[in-house]
């Protein structure tokens, strides 16, 4: 709350100073480039357009839609990332062969991938949000895969020797020692992925011209920015809140799952 108030204060102070002095660097400050925060917040309670429901209603509906895409993508990406991590952890050869490509996959801009995914998966009778979920998964799987490898490697050598002395099967070693040891690493990745999947979902909506989500709203308000700048800013705030909420949900899940080792919870 204090931080929020502080940010609000910074925004208004920046506006006030730049407008009073007439500074034009790095950009001219006026009600168009930086609308007052009160305008942005109150815009949420005004109708989207003449005779339509309030903006906040509309944005919450769209958030729910985007959230579903993001969450499906998050789950899909986490599962794929974990599976890749487990496989690459167990095979040095595969790790050396595949890891460079896993890394390379992330250097391809998501905006270049998104239209292809939409073309490949669109119009196959799948729900319209499915291709977007796949795009969100594309951003999600990478940190999970990398941290799963690192987490599984983090099991103590002594613990592995102990399991060996018990004649434990590789399956038991994985589930009873390596997986629990990797959880703090995996959750660190899931936190990154949580926000990443929201970004992925929003960006995924742009080339698929989906109007039901926040991506559609952002694109729409972008076009009317000169007439209604507060609407875009308000949408951005809602999108940020969505990412924070998702992040918070992962932190909560971590508290519940890794409660046995509080010193590992970041």
């Amino acid at each position, binding site marked *: 709350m204090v931080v929020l108030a502080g940010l609000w204060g910074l925004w208004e102070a920046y506006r006030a100073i730049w407008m009073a002095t007439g500074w034009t660097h790095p950009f001219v400050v006026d009600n168009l480039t930086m609308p007052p925060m009160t305008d942005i917040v109150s815009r949420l309670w005004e109708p989207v357009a003449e005779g339509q429901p309030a903006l906040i209603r509309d944005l919450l509906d769209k958030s729910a839609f985007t959230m579903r895409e993001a969450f499906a993508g998050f789950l899909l990406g986490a599962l794929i990332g974990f599976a890749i991590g487990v496989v690459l952890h167990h095979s040095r050869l595969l790790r050396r062969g595949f890891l460079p490509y896993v890394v390379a996959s992330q250097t391809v801009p998501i905006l270049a991938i998104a239209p292809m995914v939409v073309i490949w998966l669109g119009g196959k009778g799948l729900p319209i949000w499915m291709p977007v979920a796949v795009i969100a998964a594309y951003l999600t799987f990478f940190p999970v895969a990398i941290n799963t490898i690192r987490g599984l490697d983090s099991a103590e050598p002594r613990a592995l*020797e102990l399991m*060996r*002395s*018990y*004649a434990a099967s590789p399956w038991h070693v994985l589930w*009873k020692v390596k997986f*629990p040891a990797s959880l703090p690493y995996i959750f660190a990745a899931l936190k990154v992925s949580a926000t990443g999947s929201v970004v992925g979902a929003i960006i995924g909506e742009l080339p698929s011209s989906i109007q039901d989500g926040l991506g559609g709203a952002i694109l729409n308000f972008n076009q009317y920015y000169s007439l209604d700048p507060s609407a875009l800013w308000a949408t951005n705030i809602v999108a940020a809140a969505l990412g924070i909420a998702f992040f918070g949900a992962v932190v909560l899940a971590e508290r519940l799952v890794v409660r046995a*080792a509080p010193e590992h919870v970041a």
Partner: protein
Amino acid sequence: MSNTGVGSTEPPRSAGAGSAGAGAGKSAAAVTIEGVTKTFAKGGTIAVQDIDLELQPGEFVSLIGPSGCGKSTLLRVIGDLVQPTTGTVKVGGKSAHQARLDRDYGMVFQEAVLFDWRTITKNISLPLELAGWDRTRRNDRVKEMIDLVELSGFESHHPWELSGGMQMRVAIARALSFDPKLLLMDEPFGALDEMTRERLNLELLRIWEASGSTVVFVTHSITEAVFLSTRVVVMSPRPGRIAGTVEIDLPQPRTADTREEPRFFELATELRELLRGRAVEPIQAEEVQ
């Protein structure tokens, strides 16, 4: 599996367990090591060389020597965690590998190696889960083990809530939970303070009496070796060889007063001289784990 269960009502072993080899004619030796040499591929370091050693069931044998003499390596060779370059190890008449698969080993390391995400109860029952025991049987055995190491009241605690000494007792309980024939201990009390160490020494002897396992105990404390063992094997610095073996003929059961007996000091002196005789370099390279 002729071993008796922990906490069973079998009579305790006779005093004079120090007489190794006596009456061991019919059953197989607990451990037979023949001509074992271990050379590490990296740099060709010879960790241990030409080790011949036989342990009888129920013996408590300490391996003592300066850092880097390969005593931990020898322990791992016995436990099939490290493969010998040459030579053979038989455990209860079986190969060390088969003995490991048959879960004949209980291992305790210098660190307790407990799993933070498991309660004390769940830590102790881990080997039982792996061995496929059902829940009721596991719970019964864990209760027995908790009593044995006197940790009642801490069942649902997590490892980090326990002191170092208590954590080590959990590790010992876990190692004994599935009633292994052979307890392999690698400097288990090395990281503990002197007071805790002496108390745990006494406890370990009590547990050993009750469980009837054979113990191989690696230490670099002379007094600990004398106090605990029925026999002490002294190893020379790298390459580790057996410099000598000392029978510890102190009466059983040992008590806190055992440490005050003249014989205790005589034996400690004997060990010290055996160690000094071979201690060429005071500081050895780090022991290969």
